[in-house]
């Protein structure tokens, strides 16, 4: 589902989780920050998580905040006990995946090939991702008219839902009363109902939010009995065409039903990698069978959350919890393209979504800060939470990194973050404070790689 630029879908968001929550993501963020190698020990000492003890640890931790991923290091047995499993959990183990907690699920962060190879393989051939942890929700209008569901959903999102054609998918944002982003999601018009894909970390809250707002006119159903598999990369179309020839007729953000090996699937041409690709909603009981068949193809490798994050970062796609969250509005997040023309000032159905006044004010006057790409000049990755300064000596930060890491395809560090509007022009030189040093970074145009969507 994702496709777009933003996709939510996938992973990204997922990855991150909220920055605060420890449990979730772990992959990324860490919460802990600490994940340093010592975690094991630390843990044994009973420190649960957080920071490690001593001062030295602490030093690292802070800068690292972003580092999040540090967590991968630590197998956290306690946390794993309460984690949910996707229908592909047994397959991940059989494939040799390293499993980590993510958004309440035990998920594969990488397979034996490793994050670098998985990332590069996805851009060169095709990668299969388990994104079954994401929420799949149906909104069925009691009237039987999908327009009624679309109109109801427009009370929660600033996207043009009434203008979404049957068989098409669109990126949308749940806003709050302050104009912030509760979550990002994909919405499909299925003809007689709407089908939504939301972030794993937010799915329960999103479901409650939808039920509270729409239950008069619609029934809202969480589809717990379906898995979601993404097949991404330049060979994805050819691989899928071996199971269903008509897939070649789909364009970016088209959605179609298809029978793959006699398994009824809902396929969207979208993703969270910046590559052409598909997201396949499949009955949970058939998910492993379908995944195995796709993996039999020599062009397909299983890809974990680690590469999913580096792929979406290079593609400039936001991860909810990192790059967008309830405190960032769509204008400063550089997601004004996700506001429907009809929903903006002067449009036929202007406003009518939570926080519209705040969002419109930001449109009118320009945001005070803006999400931008950041290209560190050296080799050191600059990760989430790192402060940005206008000069090597200035005291007050002018921004913060929201996601960052090493880009295997760009072969250099890549990041994105929020900077003061006056510093947001591409080419502006800023400094990231990393481990006590100020390292030069340049404001860059997103994405870092050219998308290959089939428009």
């Amino acid at each position, binding site marked *: 589902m994702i496709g777009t630029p933003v996709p939510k879908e996938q992973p990204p968001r997922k990855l991150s989780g909220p920055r605060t929550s420890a449990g979730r993501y772990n992959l*990324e963020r860490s919460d802990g920050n600490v994940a340093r190698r010592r975690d094991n020990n630390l843990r044994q000492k009973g420190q649960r998580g957080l920071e490690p003890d001593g001062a030295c*640890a602490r030093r690292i931790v802070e800068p690292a905040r972003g580092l999040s991923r*540090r967590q991968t*290091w630590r197998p956290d047995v306690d946390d794993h006990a309460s984690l949910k499993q996707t229908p592909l959990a047994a397959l991940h183990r059989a494939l040799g995946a390293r499993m980590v907690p993510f958004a309440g699920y035990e998920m594969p962060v990488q397979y034996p090939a490793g*994050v*670098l190879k998985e990332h590069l393989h996805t851009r060169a051939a095709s990668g299969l991702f388990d994104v079954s942890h994401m929420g799949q929700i149906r909104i069925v209008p009691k009237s039987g008219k999908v327009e009624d569901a679309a109109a109801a959903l427009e009370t929660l999102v600033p996207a043009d839902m009434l203008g979404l054609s049957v068989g098409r998918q669109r990126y949308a944002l749940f806003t709050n009363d302050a104009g912030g982003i509760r979550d990002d999601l994909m919405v499909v018009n299925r003809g007689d109902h709407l089908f939504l894909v939301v972030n794993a970390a937010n799915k329960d809250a999103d479901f409650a939010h939808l039920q509270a707002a729409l239950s008069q006119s619609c029934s809202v159903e969480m589809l717990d009995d379906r898995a979601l598999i993404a097949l991404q990369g330049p060979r994805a179309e050819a691989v899928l065409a071996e199971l269903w020839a008509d897939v070649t007729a789909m364009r970016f953000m088209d959605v179609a039903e298809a029978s793959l090996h006699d398994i009824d699937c809902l396929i969207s041409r979208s993703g969270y990698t910046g590559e052409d690709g598909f997201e396949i909603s499949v009955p949970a009981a058939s998910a492993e069978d379908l995944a195995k068949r796709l993996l039999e193809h020599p062009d397909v490798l299983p890809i974990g959350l680690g590469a999913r994050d580096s792929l979406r970062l290079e593609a400039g796609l936001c991860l909810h919890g990192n790059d967008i969250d309830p405190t960032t509005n769509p204008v400063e997040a550089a997601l004004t393209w996700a506001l429907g023309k009809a929903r903006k000032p002067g449009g036929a159905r202007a406003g009518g979504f939570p926080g519209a006044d705040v969002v419109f004010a930001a449109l009118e006057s320009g945001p005070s800060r803006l999400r931008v790409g950041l290209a560190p000049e050296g080799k050191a990755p600059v990760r989430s939470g790192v402060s940005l300064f206008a000069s090597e000596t200035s005291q007050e930060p002018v921004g913060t990194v929201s996601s960052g*890491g*090493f880009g295997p395809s760009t072969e250099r560090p890549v990041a994105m973050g929020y900077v003061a509007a006056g510093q947001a022009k591409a080419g502006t030189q800023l400094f990231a404070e990393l481990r006590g040093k100020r390292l030069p970074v340049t404001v860059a145009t997103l994405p870092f790689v050219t998308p290959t969507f089939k428009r």
Partner: protein
Amino acid sequence: MLKFTEEHEWLKIEGDVATVGITRHAADQLGDLVFVELPEEGTSFDKGASAATVESVKAASDVYCPLDGEIVGINQAIVDDPALVNSDPEGAGWFFKLKLSDPSSANALLDEAAYKELIA
């Protein structure tokens, strides 16, 4: 003399100088490294202080100084090619040479058998 720490570093000790690196287990757990930052020669660290940083695609991790001492040599090759740490962590992928403040302090570290038991 070969010693190990619970933080997954190895020390090859010759006289009062220890060559320090991270173990195969640590390198495998970290995954593909893309960045290594080493301390400057002449810097002194206390045991447990962060002496180096390694970053994989996904995360940054610290390499702790295993004993009190002064850095008397660094392996620039792993800065230039971090993948060397993954391919040969206990050989060409060494990190730094540490002149020990108290060579006898190494006796308290793990021997190879104890380390293997730790990661088993």
